[in-house]
């Protein structure tokens, strides 16, 4: 494989998308976009190239991502079991029995999923971090179900077949050969209106006066605008916006806070125009064979995973990529979760 002299990067080997179609068209430009791939391109074209075009992914998945997946899956399990209870004849089971059963099974699932999970390493002390631990995952879930399980003013809606509207994959055309795709955590009714609900785990404060510093990050926000658009177009659901259902995971407690983020019709239209502009940008970079770095983004959110690679001489980048990254797990917006 020929290595690019300027960047030191070789083209990706033939990619196996695990049976799913490729999100790239015959010319090699991506035509199915989700918030992850679009966010990568917006953040740094080189990061997009490394992740989406060349398929380099860290060998060890981030513990934040693992923790978030366990948390999401357990909440999804809870809502599915509660929806099952509502679909069945009530019989002798009370809502409290159904809740207890759903909590127990969600916790069982989370314990199974997270068996062997290792929290991240504190870069200052070199010791395992003590906030996103396995015990704190279970604590957070138990507290979440206590807080919202039996008395939530956001009611998960049911789909026509009775299933809970949780973990919904969407995909829709924005022009002849372009698609947007994504996954919604949940659709809920709050008051008279429908909202997408998105679960977030964070170390930031999500309650009290300082919570606004956390929640203001979601407007504008690539992911939340795409979700609003997805719910409106793919599900024909006139959602008012997204409810961020956040939990602060601290060493000794978990605190829950929610906030609304609205998107108007004009917000959605402006976002779509942006998608076309970024798509055009990707076409140009692809045609020129050069994806520039955005050096101003290297330090965002604790530092880009590729920072150490980009910091090295182009001649040795590939060798370092092979040490800490793999090309076996490509990200595909078309793959349902």
């Amino acid at each position, binding site marked *: 494989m020929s290595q690019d002299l300027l960047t030191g990067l070789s083209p990706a080997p033939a990619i196996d998308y695990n049976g799913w179609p490729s999100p790239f068209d015959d010319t090699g430009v991506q035509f199915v976009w989700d918030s992850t791939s679009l966010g990568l391109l917006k953040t740094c074209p080189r990061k997009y190239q490394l992740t989406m075009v060349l398929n380099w992914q860290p060998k060890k998945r981030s513990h934040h991502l693992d923790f978030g997946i366990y948390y999401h899956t357990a909440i999804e399990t809870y809502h599915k079991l509660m929806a099952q209870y509502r679909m069945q004849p009530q019989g002798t089971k009370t809502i409290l029995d159904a809740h207890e059963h759903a*909590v*127990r099974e969600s*916790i*069982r699932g989370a*314990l*199974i999923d997270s*068996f062997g999970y290792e929290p991240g390493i504190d870069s200052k002390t070199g010791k395992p971090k003590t906030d996103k631990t*396995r*015990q704190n995952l*279970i*604590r957070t879930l*138990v*507290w979440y179900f*206590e*807080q919202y399980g039996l008395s939530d003013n956001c009611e998960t809606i049911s789909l026509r077949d009775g299933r809970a509207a949780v973990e919904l994959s969407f995909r829709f055309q924005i022009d002849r050969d372009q698609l947007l795709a994504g996954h919604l955590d949940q659709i809920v009714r*709050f008051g008279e209106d429908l909202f997408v609900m998105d679960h977030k785990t964070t170390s930031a404060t999500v*309650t*009290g006066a300082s*919570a*606004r510093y956390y*929640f203001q990050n979601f407007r504008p926000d690539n992911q939340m605008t795409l979700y609003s658009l997805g719910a409106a177009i793919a599900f024909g659901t006139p959602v008012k916006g997204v*409810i961020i259902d956040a939990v602060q995971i601290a060493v*000794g*407690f978990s*605190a*829950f*806070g*929610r*906030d*609304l983020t609205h998107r108007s019709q004009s917000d959605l239209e402006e976002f779509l125009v942006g998608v076309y502009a970024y798509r055009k940008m990707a076409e140009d970079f692809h045609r020129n064979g050069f994806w520039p770095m955005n050096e101003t983004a290297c330090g965002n959110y604790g530092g880009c995973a590729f920072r150490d690679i980009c910091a090295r001489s182009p001649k040795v980048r590939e060798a370092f990529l092979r040490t800490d990254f793999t090309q076996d797990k490509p990200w595909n917006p078309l793959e349902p979760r």
Partner: protein
Amino acid sequence: MTEETSANVPPIPIARPDPRLIQELFDKDPLELSDRDLDLIIAEFRADRVNYLQEAAEGKKTKAAAKVAKAPAIPVSDQLDLSDLGLDL
């Protein structure tokens, strides 16, 4: 809509299992956990939440009391008395 943790504390204290037992349950193969084991884990964290909310409520009360106590006193010389109003009493 920012919504916060409600202090919905159940009135009856929950008996807590031995913390070593909880650690043992976490170390156990999760596929071998019985319903009873899971109920113990859940009860432990429910009790934890009750304690946390109680402590948080008490902390808020203490903070509020401290705020009242720390309210800066107006120096005597700056205080008004009726004569400052210039009323012909």
